[in-house]
């Protein structure tokens, strides 16, 4: 489902409006959305040195702390917060301090830790085009193959709307998918922002998505389909004088996904008759219904028009 843009693109600027020279490295994997703080990301203000910043939804960023080694943060569903991997060791990442704790909480004797999520019973990563699982964080096997068209490399990972749900973004395809780490299934269908990007994070509190665009700007998308087309109204039974008949139309997105909870305005543009409602709301399938009453003794054609503003 192609999502509807709510706000942006907002350029990212640091304190006082300084434009940024770079955002982390080429991807957004090192960033994380933290409720109450914003998009926590490593940013290099123009003419200055890189530092972890808190980026507001409108792009205003504030420096919080520095660290030399910038690596993708690991979402920790088991203990909360984030972990910071350093080759074969995992450290708790202190967001307030903008740095990792001094001692690791997990170490493997050899190998490189490449997990993106810490679950209660295993580690997960999405970086190779499927959901991969591991008990040690080093050796992974495929746990789930994404449905439908191949989404590409899973990049940023954020919390879903429930403790066992994660949101994975796929920058090359612009896809967003939710994954249930307990049931090991995709949930909620595939979302699209319709463009390649550097990463997308879900904001559960407000049910919106935060996208980092390829030119390093922020966009806010609704967790709702952007309407693209409204079908001509059709009667569900034969229209007869002196009878009421149900009519309906359907609002769809660009990929023919239903648009729910949208307002549809109704009018009669030709012929005689009346409508029960001037406006109705689309259901989960994108259908909006109304009732057409043809007057007793009337004849000929009646034209019903449905319009939606989007």
């Amino acid at each position, binding site marked *: 489902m192609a999502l509807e843009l*709510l*706000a942006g693109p907002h350029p990212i600027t640091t304190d006082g409006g300084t434009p940024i020279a770079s955002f982390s490295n080429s991807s957004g994997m090192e960033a994380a959305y933290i*409720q109450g703080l914003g998009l926590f990301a490593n940013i290099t203000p123009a003419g200055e040195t890189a530092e972890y910043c808190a980026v507001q*939804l409108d792009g205003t*960023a504030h420096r919080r702390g520095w660290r030399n080694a910038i690596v993708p943060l690991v979402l920790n569903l088991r203990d909360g917060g984030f972990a910071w991997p350093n080759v074969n060791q995992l450290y708790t990442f202190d967001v307030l301090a903008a740095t990792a704790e001094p001692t690791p909480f997990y170490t493997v004797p050899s190998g490189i830790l490449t997990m993106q999520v810490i679950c209660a019973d295993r580690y997960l990563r999405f970086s190779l085009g499927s959901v991969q699982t591991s008990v040690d964080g080093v050796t992974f096997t495929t746990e789930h193959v994404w449905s439908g068209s191949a989404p590409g490399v899973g990049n940023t990972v954020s919390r879903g709307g429930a403790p066992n749900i994660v949101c994975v973004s796929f920058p090359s395809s612009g896809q967003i998918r939710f994954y249930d780490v307990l049931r090991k299934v995709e949930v909620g269908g595939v979302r699209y922002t319709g463009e390649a990007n550097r990463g997308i994070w879900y904001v559960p509190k407000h049910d919106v998505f935060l996208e980092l665009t390829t030119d390093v700007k922020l966009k806010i998308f609704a967790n709702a389909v952007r309407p693209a087309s409204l079908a001509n109204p059709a009667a569900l039974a034969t229209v007869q004088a002196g009878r009421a008949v149900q009519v309906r139309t359907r609002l769809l997105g660009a990929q023919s996904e239903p648009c729910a909870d949208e*307002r549809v305005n109704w009018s009669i543009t030709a012929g005689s008759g009346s409508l029960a409602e001037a406006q109705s709301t689309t259901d989960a399938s994108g259908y909006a219904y109304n009732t057409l009453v043809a007057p007793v003794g009337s004849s000929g054609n009646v034209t019903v028009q449905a319009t939606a503003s*989007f």
Partner: protein
Amino acid sequence: MLRQTFTSEPFLYRLAADIPITGFPGAHYYPEYTTPPRIYGEEYDGGGVVALFVQEEPRVDGYEVVYLWLQQNQINWPSYNYALHRWNATTGTYLGRQDAGLSPYLSTLAQSRDGTLWLLYDVSSIYKARLDPAAGLVIDATPDYSLAALGLTGLQTFSVDVEQNLLLGSEAVSDSLGVYNLTTGALIREIKTPGMVSQIMPEDLGRCYVAVANSFTDRRVCLVNYATGELQSVFKVGDTFSPYSVQHAVTWDRKYRRFLVWNYAPIAIDGQNTSVVKGYFPQPQPVGITKPIPLRPPRKYRSTPILTRIYGDLGEPMPGARVTLSPDSGIATVTGFPGLTDSDGESVGTIYGADAGSLTLTASATV
């Protein structure tokens, strides 16, 4: 940014004629100091803030005196002097100066929770220091603690907690605070901080404020629970610290519950000092509000929640502020009461779309 609650008077430089001539009377440094329109015979050169601290001294109109230990240049031999500038901590009135007594060379001063002054010399020895009304800062001949004997050789910033037998400290270019056993030197715990530790300021038996600095001029202070190893909060003091000697230009005033910060400003045209000491209550202040962001697609005949966020200068949330939305067009109306920001600093108001079209929505806040 914190709420400013105190501003001192600027201290006064001496005229050249008032500076005692010692050593080599013929020696003359810094002739520009007395080239008209400049008239004073000494000047802080921007690099010589040694320490800022407070001493409890019962006075008619207060209980404390603020001391600024400064290295200044002067036109007479030996071309520099060490001064302790003094202010009434209640009124900010300048109380004059006295000679510091000690050389700041290789010295770092720190103040304990009980007000005791400690001097770390050459990163190896800690002396208890006293403030003598006549002689200035005085230390004993032998150190109270030898860090070298404890195996601690690199501490640049420190704080002594005799009551709990703890030494707080940090090595140069270290983004962590170490908690050591004062007797054995054993590292008890290490606490990461968002920048290089540059000043440690005790607050109570378990907590201290830690000023941190990085490569920028904006400075941060953390509240650290060194008993549990927890970093409890991070905020900024003022807009910036002094760009010079930042590690010595801030202190925590436990009696009046405020940070005292030396704010350097360029001298006046006649050479008079214009820098002051400012005090800040540790309550972060909001500095901005985000643009209003709809959380659902705005539609005619539908209510749309509008998100705004109020934040401090570290991006921290500012709860309890009232946000008012103002559309510039009649196609949408604001419904409900203005929302209060929550613990995330976020407020969600609502507008109702009365017609189709576009409008500009402005958000303002009362804090």
